[in-house]
């Protein structure tokens, strides 16, 4: 069964460093998402991406964040200068149709720890 994969599973970084979180969505999907979950809190939407551009982004997704689909398979989330409060679990998701109409398939997540 096709699945969304994410690497690395755990990333530890120093405050101020750049990190890139990687995702490989399901191959024929068109809509891509990043969500995050701070420990003990809700899963929060960060950004959606369709047709090689951002469809929507949340208030959390400020200038420190960027997304890219550098080739036909990868979907990345970059945090330019990490802060302590960026420590969270980051989930990538993809959907074959507009995500509001159908299920989104989530990856296992990357746990980001900023020291």
């Amino acid at each position, binding site marked *: 069964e096709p699945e969304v994969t994410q690497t690395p599973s755990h990333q530890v970084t120093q405050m101020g460093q750049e990190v890139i979180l990687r995702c490989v969505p399901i191959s024929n999907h068109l809509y891509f998402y990043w969500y995050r979950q701070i420990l003990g809190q809700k*899963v929060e*939407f960060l950004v*959606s991406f369709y047709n090689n551009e951002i469809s929507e982004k949340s208030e959390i997704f400020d200038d420190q964040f960027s997304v890219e689909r550098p080739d036909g398979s990868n979907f990345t989330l970059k945090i330019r200068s990490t802060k302590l409060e960026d420590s969270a679990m980051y989930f990538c998701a993809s959907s074959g149709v*507009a*995500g*509001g*109409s159908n*299920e989104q398939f989530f990856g296992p997540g990357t746990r980001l720890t900023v020291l």
Partner: protein
Amino acid sequence: SQQGEEDPQALSIQEGENATMNCSYKTSINNLQWYRQNSGRGLVHLILIRSNEREKHSGRLRVTLDTSKKSSSLLITASRAADTDSYFCATPTYNQGGKLIFGQGTELSVKP
């Protein structure tokens, strides 16, 4: 505004019992989705119920949707220890992005 608030926040039952989790939301939806989460596999999609459906089954799962009350419930029948996880409802927005808005979740513990 908050969407998809679940209750109870935590539920502890014995194996074989049924578990019922509720979710309320505030705005109009075209569907509502239930997910479960564990530390090993992230978020796993369980079931999607559309706004024109009142009830849906999948194996031991039964989901109901009452759009007049803006609420949904997830029933797990004959629970097993392996059902122990956190369960979330999520509602998508209508716009192109279709982001999901998650509730706080219900932590289900099924004791053998």
